[in-house]
């Protein structure tokens, strides 16, 4: 592993988030480590239920505890472990130094409050801004995210905005305090394709001017390829492969990453033939298979895959994967 540079803003080490249910323990996040530097974009990809959203919510302390608990792990923001912080200190950081935007802009805004109220609230909480300062800053930010006629639109209610516009409002809300880390949890999934591209462009543009580190959670490999510097592939609560986006796409190593990339429809393959798919279903996180959780679906399964979880093997200084089979390969 490379030494962690001084401009690392967030360093997640061996994060585990388990949910205690009546008859089982669901291991939603099971030993995830990643770090992110100022201005960098890290993509986290994986199927639904692979733990990518829970990992980010855990980092912000937003998973309800109980039923969730963290048997191990650290989330270091500038050297402070967020998992041990009291709720009040976390509230000071959330929306201020660390922010998050969500998948569905249609439900992420309070329908009974004017947009202005929801935007200025953030500034009043974190920056002790006066109402008029907050309003000015909010209008400026709405203009920044491309809301036309922001000075008047700010007094509208959320239902008077379209989906794309609402996601812009959400981004404006998240970035008002110029946070250092922005978690974007599938920010474009609920939007149509043309709006998707605009939103991703907007995030990239704002990231550049504010120097924000972005953790982009998605299941869309196209989004990852276009916008991220590094990518981490998650399966059953663990990162199975991580590396610079170009390297991972050029030489995917873990069988799961390979499977994901192969199941993409290709424009050059023509319309003939069915899409390839990874056989089987994602595992039940309450009853994980022994050893490597991917082994029941893996085409290259070895005997020891059933007994032990493979270690992370470095393929290059920045690229690593957790699989027994790659030890054999050069």
């Amino acid at each position: 592993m490379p030494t962690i540079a001084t401009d690392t803003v967030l360093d997640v080490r061996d994060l585990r988030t388990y949910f205690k249910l009546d008859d089982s323990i669901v291991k939603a996040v099971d030993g995830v480590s990643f770090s992110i530097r100022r201005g960098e974009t890290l993509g986290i990809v994986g199927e639904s239920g692979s733990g990518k959203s829970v990992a980010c919510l855990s980092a912000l302390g937003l998973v309800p505890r109980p039923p969730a608990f963290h048997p191990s792990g650290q989330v270091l923001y500038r050297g402070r472990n967020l998992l041990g912080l009291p709720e009040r200190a976390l509230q000071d950081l959330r929306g201020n130094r660390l922010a998050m935007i969500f998948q569905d802009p249609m439900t992420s805004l309070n329908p009974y409050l004017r947009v202005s109220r929801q935007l200025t609230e953030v500034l009043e909480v974190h920056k002790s801004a006066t109402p008029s300062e907050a309003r000015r800053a909010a209008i400026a930010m709405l203009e920044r995210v491309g809301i036309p006629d922001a000075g008047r639109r700010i007094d509208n209610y959320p239902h008077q905005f379209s989906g794309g516009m609402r996601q812009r409002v959400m981004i404006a809300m998240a970035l008002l305090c110029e946070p250092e880390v922005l978690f974007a949890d599938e920010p474009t999934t609920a939007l149509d394709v043309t709006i998707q591209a605009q939103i991703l462009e907007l995030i990239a543009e704002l990231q550049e001017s504010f120097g924000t580190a972005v953790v982009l959670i998605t299941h869309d490999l196209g989004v990852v390829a276009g916008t991220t510097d590094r990518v981490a592939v998650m399966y059953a609560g663990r990162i199975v492969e991580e590396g610079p986006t170009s390297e991972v796409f050029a030489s995917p190593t873990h069988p799961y990453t390979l499977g994901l990339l192969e199941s993409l429809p290709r424009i050059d393959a023509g319309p003939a033939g069915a899409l390839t798919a990874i056989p089987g279903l994602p595992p039940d996180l309450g009853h994980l298979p022994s050893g490597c959780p991917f082994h029941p679906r893996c085409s290259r399964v070895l005997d020891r895959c059933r007994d032990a979880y493979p270690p992370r093997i470095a393929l290059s200084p920045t690229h690593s994967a957790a699989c027994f089979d790659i030890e054999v390969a050069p």
Partner: protein
Amino acid sequence: MTTRDESRQAVASPAATELVVGSSLWQDAWKRLRKNHVAVASGWVLVFLAAACIIGPSMVAATWGYDYETQDLAYGPRPPSWEHPFGTDFFGRDLLTRVLYGCRVSLSVGFLAAILAATIGTVYGAVSSYAGGMIDSVMMRVVDILYALPYMFLVIILVTIAGKSLLLVFTALGAVGWLLTARVVRGQVMSLKSQDFILAAQSLGTRPGGIVFRHLIPNALGPVIVTFTLTVPAMILQEAFLSFLGLGVQAPRPSLGALINDGAHQMLVFWWTLLFPGGVMALMLMALNFLGDGVRDALDPRMNH
């Protein structure tokens, strides 16, 4: 380019200018309520009753010189006439004046007790539900226990201990009437707190107080208002019942309940002493119930079309 397109649109469609003003979900509900003729008529009946019981007694006093307490035993109970439109009671007092006074007492007790109940219930229910876990369990068990005690029994104890005053009647009614609202709000908040915009507010560092009062309660207010409009008539009935038992408003001050009680004893002889207070009470309760129904329909988003 975008701004030019935008302004051209604004000129072209009147909808665009309306959009800029901003219409909340409350305003939409208000529009729907105004289309409901029964509810609107009930609203006017209540406004008329409220106005009548506020200015009515002094108008009667100015015209005929009656008040609600001066007795004229020699005059005695007389049926409705031009001098006494509602007749007079057993002690020769003008019944119209007394009904108007009684109406004033009933309406104010009903509304104040219902406001008190709605306020306590909303805050209690929202806090309990948002806190969750042990706190929620303990707070809701308290509600269960109070629910299990006979409601009227509690009020009677409160009124007996604290004395018989109008202020205490509505405090006592309000203090035990919040249980239903608390449960309704708790249920609402339970479903609201798992919604995305609450998570979004949390992710922006909003304090728990801000989440409860700015985000959860406004969204739970629809059912609270419905419960409120149906609590008012219930409270008026409770007050009438307390007065009927002699625990509410004390003679010679009238309340609708006390007047009906008096009238019921003599209804075979002096029918008007029951008919008029009873009729006004029935009119008031009916109007409140129809208005409550109308509000419920107007706040139900499925009634949109």
